[in-house]
């Protein structure tokens, strides 16, 4: 559970940094938020891996959620267009993240059972 909270924190910092990168074009002081956000995000991602999540799962969920959230937030904050194709893409990302998460949990459960059977 802790590793998913850390992963959520990594995603939120990444999205904040990316949106600040866009806003920094008008307000250069925001570059401080950009740097802090990306550094914090990678630190949190490192903690997620240390807590035992696989890099394949963590990186897929982190990257995809960041892209989807950034697209949604750019629409809300900057009035960027959100097309039907983009909506379909966000739905696909959410479905894909769910599949990776459920698949990883099932694999971990099987590994635990195999360990018990072997012990």
């Amino acid at each position, binding site marked *: 559970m802790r590793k998913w909270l850390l992963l959520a924190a990594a995603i939120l910092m990444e999205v904040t940094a990316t949106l600040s990168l866009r806003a920094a074009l008008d307000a250069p002081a925001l570059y401080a938020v950009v740097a802090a956000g990306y550094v914090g995000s*990678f630190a949190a*991602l*490192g*903690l997620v*891996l*240390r807590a035992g999540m*696989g*890099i*394949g*799962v963590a*990186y*897929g969920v982190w*990257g*995809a959620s960041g*892209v*989807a959230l950034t*697209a949604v937030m750019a629409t809300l904050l900057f009035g*960027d*267009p959100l*097309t*039907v*194709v*983009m*909506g*379909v*893409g*966000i*739905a*696909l*990302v*959410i*479905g*894909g*993240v*769910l*599949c*990776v*998460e*459920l*698949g*990883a949990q*099932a*694999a*971990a459960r099987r*590994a635990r059972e195999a360990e018990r059977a072997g012990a």
Partner: protein
Amino acid sequence: MSWIFLACAILTEVAATLSLRMASQPGGAKAWWAGVGAGYVAAFGFLTLTLSSGLALGVAYGIWAAVGVALTALASRVLFKEPLTTVMVLGIVLIAAGVLCIELGAAH
């Protein structure tokens, strides 16, 4: 030429992400963090070259992110023996397709 730059951007990104895995392990050598930094800086450098040689941002970023996620999952299966089930592969394909849709949809 832009596709060669894009391939280099993907490979340096995957190398940096795999270094992050090595650096963050308990007892992992701190030197891996240098690989993480150099890899991501090189990845963004190659991505910039890709854009300046004419590939649209939506296309370049979408392919970069999607292929990076898929390659990282495959490499971690091979290098670190991380589990990769059919459901997880399906999920990675969906993520890749979704990221491409978001970036291509945003490009128009």
